[in-house]
């Protein structure tokens, strides 16, 4: 399955958003996940099935002025 993650093309096997985030080994509390231009709350990550061509952004808040 091919998706676009953070602006780059990627082939993955994860089936849900949660799988993807776990697989990326990220600190879940720090992650802001956008699935096809819509933010998904942490509780709902496991409900979101990933399909071919999806656009996913995994973001976090950082220092800025």
């Amino acid at each position, binding site marked *: 399955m091919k998706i676009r993650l953070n602006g780059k093309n990627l082939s993955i096997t994860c089936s849900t958003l949660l799988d993807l985030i776990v697989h990326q080994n990220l600190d879940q509390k*720090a992650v802001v996940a956008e699935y096809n231009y819509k*933010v998904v709350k942490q509780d709902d990550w496991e409900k979101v099935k990933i399909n071919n061509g999806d656009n996913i952004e*995994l*973001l976090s808040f950082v220092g800025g002025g």
Partner: protein
Amino acid sequence: MEQDKNDTLYLGKQGFSNRLLTGTGKFASRELIPVMLDACGSEMITVALRRIDKMDQTENILKFIPDNVTLLPNTSGARTAKEAVRIARIAKQAGCGSFIKIEVITDIKYLLPDNSETLKATEILAKEDFTVLPYMMPDLTLAKKLEQAGAAAVMPLGAPIGSNRGLEMKPMIEILIQNMEIPVIVDAGIGKPSDAALAMEMGADAVLVNTAIATSWDPAMAAKAFSMAVKAGRMAYLAEMAQDTKYAKASSPLTGFLRED
């Protein structure tokens, strides 16, 4: 003698008693942020949103910000109104509240804002119940349009971001202060407490200081200094200090001199 307890700054519906806004950028260590906030009492602080890079995955600036401090996510990285709007919506949905500092920049040398894209983003987000604080070139006509569009304040730059050059845009900022209904917050360029005091004496409603605090060798002391300077400038504004004069005015009496005659 004490500053009026009711001297509250309203941004949207929220009131603030401390008129120093701070930022989370450029600190040598994020652990310094809560110490800095404690030192200066700032009640609002900016944060930025970025794609996670595996190489640097540990960052979550939010956990260094105490609960009583209001978050002000910025849209840094946006080059168009559209990108700014997208970032703003994500920040809000991610639970950062409804404040948003709009920052749309295409000029990578001076980081000067794009006023017209900033206006477009303000028009969209104000309608979505954001409390919109647009970072802008000081420009009265555009500021009036931002006010019309529902901005909660305007944030004119004093000088380019991070330049520490102070109130280079003073004449235009004064014009904004004298003609806007919504608050004027001087953002960017403030390098020293005297700059902050001067902005407040001119009648600015608040100042936002990030670089000058974060990059000093003692950010907590610097933050405290800025906080005191902001209060000092505000008090001077409220006390309507005397105007300057062309000639001297003696501070000692001009009669009764002890002289050899």
